[in-house]
């Protein structure tokens, strides 16, 4: 539209430019009907999805930010009062919050680190597998992906549980493991099982992302390296991994953001006992169980800020190109 408000230029030198501009404008007028119709159709088709996405996320987070500025508990709704940033001060000056944040970060880092290695190995297996095995391997790997996280949590919980589990009997030869070991009575052992369940359930997802990355590595490069006498390890390190760096970064970021929201495994296995509480669980217990909407909203907003920070660090510091790797130019 800027063309229409552009001032007409009188000087001879720019007359040609002005004429050119006018021609463009006429052209645009002819095209604009079609363009406008296409835009309108585009938004008619994509608009509902767009509006629904905003309605189910942007609105609630705005409401959470608003609620976080109030003293507000559902058990005493009449005492609702504006208290500014007090809720944030309360949360951020509480040592529990920082401990919970630390545990959440610990779970995220350990789980994602193991998953990348394991997922890469699985991706290599699926990538190289002979045709007869490929279907079988992919089907097997998709089982943990499709299974309900809560079911995975129970499966791992019952396997390690001191009364119903078999792990203590099977692994009694491992130093530190005997029939009296109660895995869910200590922070370290609880986190071990929680992370194991998380890794088992989500490695397939990361390995599928990496498989897509592997498929993009030009085979000629690998063959050339092989002809030049590079070992399998050298080819992997010098050719394959550098060529799929973008895919690895995206997979890591996606899984990290997902692991940071961990809830189901912790809820089922320990309920946050023995210092295993994570951020999502803290938010849940504050607002849903204790009905402290104001305080819970503040924790929710802080969790949201953490996710944005992780994203920001990944994109700025590690130059993860989400849009590029996800199909957008």
């Amino acid at each position, binding site marked *: 539209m800027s063309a229409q408000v552009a001032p007409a230029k009188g000087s001879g030198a720019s007359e040609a430019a002005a004429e050119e501009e006018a021609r463009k404008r006429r052209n645009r007028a002819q095209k604009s009907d079609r363009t406008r119709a296409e835009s309108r159709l585009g938004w008619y088709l994509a608009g509902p999805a*767009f509006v629904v996405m905003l309605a*189910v996320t942007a609105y609630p987070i705005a409401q959470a930010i608003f609620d976080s500025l109030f003293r507000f508990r559902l058990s005493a709704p009449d005492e609702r009062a504006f208290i500014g940033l007090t809720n944030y001060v309360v949360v951020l000056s509480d040592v529990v919050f920082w401990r919970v944040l630390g545990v959440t970060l610990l779970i995220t880092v350990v789980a994602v680190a193991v998953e990348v290695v394991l997922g890469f190995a699985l991706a290599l297996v699926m990538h190289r597998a002979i045709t007869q095995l490929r279907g079988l391997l992919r*089907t*097997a790997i998709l089982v943990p992906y499709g299974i*309900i996280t809560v079911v995975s949590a129970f499966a791992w919980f019952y396997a390690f549980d001191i009364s119903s589990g078999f792990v203590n009997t099977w692994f009694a030869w491992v130093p530190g493991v005997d029939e009296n070991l109660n895995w869910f009575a200590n922070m370290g052992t609880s986190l071990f099982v929680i992370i194991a369940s998380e890794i088992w359930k989500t490695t397939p997802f990361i390995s599928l992302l990496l498989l897509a990355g592997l498929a993009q590595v030009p085979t000629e490069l690998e063959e050339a390296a092989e002809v030049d006498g590079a070992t399998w390890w050298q080819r992997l390190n010098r050719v394959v991994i550098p060529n799929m760096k*973008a895919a690895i970064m995206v997979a890591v970021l996606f899984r990290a953001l997902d692991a940071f*929201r961990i809830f189901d495994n912790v809820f089922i296995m320990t309920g946050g006992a023995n210092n295993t509480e994570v951020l999502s669980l803290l938010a849940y217990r504050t607002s849903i169980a204790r009905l402290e909407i104001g305080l819970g909203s503040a924790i*929710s907003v802080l969790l949201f800020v953490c996710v944005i920070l992780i994203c920001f660090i990944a994109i700025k510091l590690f130059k993860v190109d989400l*849009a590029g790797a*996800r199909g957008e130019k």
Partner: protein
Amino acid sequence: MGLTTKQKVWWAVITVVVLVYALFPVAAIAATSFKIPSELDNGRFLPGTWSLINYEQILVGDAQSLFLSSLRNSIGISLIATAIAAVLATLAAYAIARLDFPGKRLILTTALAVSIFPVISIVTPLFNLWRTIGLYDTWPGLIIPYLSLTLPISIWILTAFFRQIPWELEQAAQVDGATTWQAFRKAIVPLAAPGVFTTALIAFFIAWNDFVYGISLTSTEAARPVPAALAFFTGASQFEEPTGSISAAAVVVTIPVVVLVLLFQRQIVAGLTQGAVKG
């Protein structure tokens, strides 16, 4: 295939390792589900006597109302949330893949942002709002937030699918004398339908898996889905652990997942990898 014996052995070992990795926890909970109560804490993997008592408990016994109602809720809510997401995402992805309009990138970026959104951050305000307007503990009360899980990934996967469809086929069919509708139905639908189906399948898995919304926004059997219900199981008596019933229920809800994976592994892998990383 020109595999040497050594390679064959290697592949056999690798395959066994992957199968054990993927299936062992499932086998463990399945084995537990066939144990009789007195054997639950014998520290063994397999049951001594195989019994269906836990399945009786959840399908016709005491835990029946809790389990069957949650199964009905889970199936109904997940299917509706998937269907709505599939329709909205199909329209949006068609527009993004085929039309040129300002805001395309905005829509894709929004979908990406929504998909990394921490679910728990939405739960608190919804919990409060749903109680005020009467959506708490109802099907729509879960279907609406489920769209935040199913819609973004559906848009991404379907856009990737639709970008690969040779849309010229439609014009070609019209040149050959087909009407607009015929051209769309005969040339485009057969190409687009598998993508829509795969997307719906993946979206269904995601909705089926939800726990945070399920446990926060429901309080009774009216809308509580399976994952949340599993956390509320109690034993046959208050002195009994619900281990057996939970295991049996876990197996029942895992069977459809395994069947779908067996039938459609190729499509699911294609959907997840295409929607995810495409350089």
